[in-house]
């Protein structure tokens, strides 16, 4: 996203010999009719299954509800007024904070793994890729209960620490902020590793070697060669971790003991405890529109960079 447009779109591309009319290489060419036809299924899908349900929920968010929780079609601003209540803004801020820490940790943990995998032989690479994902084909609930077995006060980790005389008595590991972050990082780590791998795999190892030959140290190679060339993958990974992590609640409830509310939990509760679908819809709409705008802004900035 950030790097390419400059080289491919704006400047007249140096390579191809074909005398193309406008911008010959890749991006920037005006879409011909056929391209629209090819894009049509995607557009139809977006219209029917993304725009239409979002529109329905947006209508809900301006409605009232009856005592059963059914939507009554009479217009009100109340739901949006309530969204601006500091209580919900604070919950929102907290959720973003957790997601940001999660994204950072996933990047730190995941980048070396993606890089190492990408430097393997082709046959090994794809098998390692599968190995990253396979733990996640079981239900998150089963995995989370396994973590609880590890972290509980009479659990495996405390047992190990006590046995090694590293701590005098069991640590409180479960139902803490740290446990919430651990649950989030575990859930989203593959979503960081895979896109980075996609970028790192195509990086020509000769570039890295050239840098070493020219006298760069490992850190310089990383910062000045590897990082810039894998940035699209890192950006994609950050997007795929950060955004879903904000709305996560099931794992965070189980690992954190549901003591502090996160936005995903609060929205879920409007539908499934408070029977207030319109307010839940309003929270969902603000949440979705807010991040849609932030995403578009990020894209625009990326394109300009």
């Amino acid at each position: 996203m950030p790097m390419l447009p400059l080289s491919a779109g704006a400047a007249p591309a140096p390579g191809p010999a074909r005398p193309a009319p406008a911008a010959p290489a890749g991006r920037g060419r005006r879409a011909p009719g056929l391209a629209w036809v090819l894009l049509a299924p995607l557009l139809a899908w977006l219209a029917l299954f993304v725009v239409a349900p979002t529109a329905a929920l947006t209508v809900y968010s301006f409605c009232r509800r009856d005592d059963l929780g059914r939507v009554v079609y009479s217009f009100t601003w109340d739901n949006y007024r309530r969204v601006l209540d500091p209580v919900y803004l604070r919950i929102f801020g907290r959720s973003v904070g957790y997601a940001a820490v999660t994204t950072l940790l996933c990047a730190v943990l995941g980048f070396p793994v993606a890089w190492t995998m990408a430097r393997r032989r082709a046959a090994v690479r794809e098998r390692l890729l599968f190995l990253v994902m396979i733990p996640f084909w079981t239900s998150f609930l089963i995995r989370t209960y396994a973590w609880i077995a590890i972290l509980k006060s009479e659990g495996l980790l405390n047992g190990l620490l006590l046995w090694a005389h590293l701590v005098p008595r069991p640590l409180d590991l479960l139902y803490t902020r740290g446990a919430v972050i651990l649950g989030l990082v575990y859930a989203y780590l593959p979503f960081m590793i895979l896109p980075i791998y996609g970028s790192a795999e195509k990086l020509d190892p000769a570039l890295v070697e050239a840098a070493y030959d020219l006298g760069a140290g490992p850190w310089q190679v990383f910062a000045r060669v590897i990082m810039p060339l894998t940035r699209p993958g890192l950006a994609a990974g950050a997007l795929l971790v950060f955004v879903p992590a904000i709305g996560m609640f099931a794992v965070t409830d189980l690992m954190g003991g549901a003591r502090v509310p996160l936005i995903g939990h609060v929205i879920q509760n409007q539908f499934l405890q408070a029977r207030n679908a319109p307010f839940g819809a309003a929270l969902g709409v603000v949440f979705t529109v807010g991040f849609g705008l932030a995403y578009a802004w990020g894209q625009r900035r990326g394109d300009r960079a």
Partner: protein
Amino acid sequence: MKVLTKANDWVSGPARQSIAASVLRRLVTVAPSGLGLARAGLGLWSAGVFGFLYLPIVVLAVYSFNASRLNIRWTGFTLRWYGELGRNPPLLEALANSLVIACAATAVSVVLGTGGAWLLHRYRFRGGRAIQTLLGVPLVMPEIVMGIGLLVLFTVLHVQLGFGTVIVAHITFCFPFVLVAVQARLAGLDPALEEAALDLGATPARAFWLVTIPGLRPAIVAGALLAFTLSMDELIVTFFTASPDSATLPLRVFGLAKVGLSPVLNALSTLLIVATVAGVWGAARFGRRARGAAIALGCVLLAVGGARATAADSELTIFTWSEYVPTAVLTGFSAETGVRVRAETFSSGEEMLAKLLTGGTAYDVIQPPDYIAEALIRNGLLRPLDYGQLPHFANILPEFRRPAYDPDQRFTVPYLAGIAGIVVNTARVTRPIRGFADLFAPEFKDRIVVMDDGRELVTAALYTLGLGTNDITPATLARVRPVLARWFQLIKLFDSDSPKTALLNGDVDLGYVWCGEAALLWNQDHRFRFVLPAEGYHRAVDVLAIPRSAPHPGAAHRFIDYVLRADVSRRISEAFPYTNPNGAARRLLTPEELANPASYPAVRPPVPSFRHLPGTGELVDALVTDLKNAR
């Protein structure tokens, strides 16, 4: 230096060696150089991260051989759970459904995502930025919002819920992940390659297929894996878009938490992971043949899924609490009557209400809690029962007849009942606990679990203020606030689904829970004592009822009467040690079952119950959210 790097790159030798081994080799061969150290460090780091990813998997695999049913303490080695897996058709069926849905959703997502990413990269579309933004929406949208939105859409379009709707929903949240992954790769792909192919006379389609796709392959594989994984593990969107026939594994698993996650699930997960790891390793080793076998297996799964989608002549669709109606009861009813039962489950009364009210599936029998049944009755959404068709209703004890929520006994039949009370680990807490005043004492800070249910907590606070079960008004909530604020400082965790887990784990010593949870604890260990709170308590009854729109009311009556039979109801008590309102069934219980102080506590009738209080739900939720937020 260069030679060393090269050697190091390719010396790692045979493909089948483990990461750890190759890391060690590297440490030995290239230790002296700084570059080698960096590489070894990376290898070690990666091995560590893989260890992190597989640690819980190893733990759950070990526990699949644990003899204890509650899956918490190691009590001995057994293979029993692997045997029971074979006798659990609903679980295997759910796994097959999950695989079919995930495969279909992944296939379509890859096509949509890859094609879309390439087109958007290659061409400048009018409104391209808007399209790009819309593609981000499914990434952001909370699952519940997407689930309800799609359910509304399908209902408006009169689409019957089933495999199709679940697959459509899964594609919608999966394909943007493929698209983003592929876009990241495209961003650095040299466009000259494709141009060269075109210059050499390839058609655009050929150039795309022979040049672009191979170049994108790593990102496509990564995106497909992300999509498959998301689909396998999704819960909420699936709940709202699935029919009883298309329930996935996560839906079944979530319900099981209520009775304690059975080691059968660990056995299933272990088999699944071992099979896929072996498959991935084998596919590389045996190449084409293994891939052929995998495709054949996929086809068999699809065929199985398709075969089950064909409906029987007479059938019955029931919507009940997860795992609350034992499988044996459903198969017993089918065997006796020839009626095929399609069972769909929910994990909270409100969840059931939300799906029922939106429509999409027509249910014959539902199982709401009493106060939701009352709301449904008041809104004319239940069908009056024909008690003439329910001869076994005579088994119901007098104290459970003509309840407040159905005063004329016209719409409901009680299933099981429970009392909310205090459970104490008497091995850790020696002081006598009589009520909430003793429970919420400073000395028990961070040793308490309570239900994550606003109304239950508010009601407990009302009791301590000398108020009644249903006295919820803005004025009384204002008095409740300081009480709950103090309690919330002491509570370690909120959990409605399985508070027994934290108690058994020893992470907490006291709880405010449903008596069924306490009864399961008592069965495990008699040191868990159930206490009726001195300040007050209430009973909740789960009932069976027939919605007004039920397509098969005749079969529904037969099912309800079957459940009322003493032998059948006794079986239900065996699986779920709540209070059984069926007098004839109670006479069949063992003395130990009847002596369980949590199943049959010594209550003083009349015991109050929750009433339908319009408009209070959001007040209670706002109060609890606010108080939790203040921590």
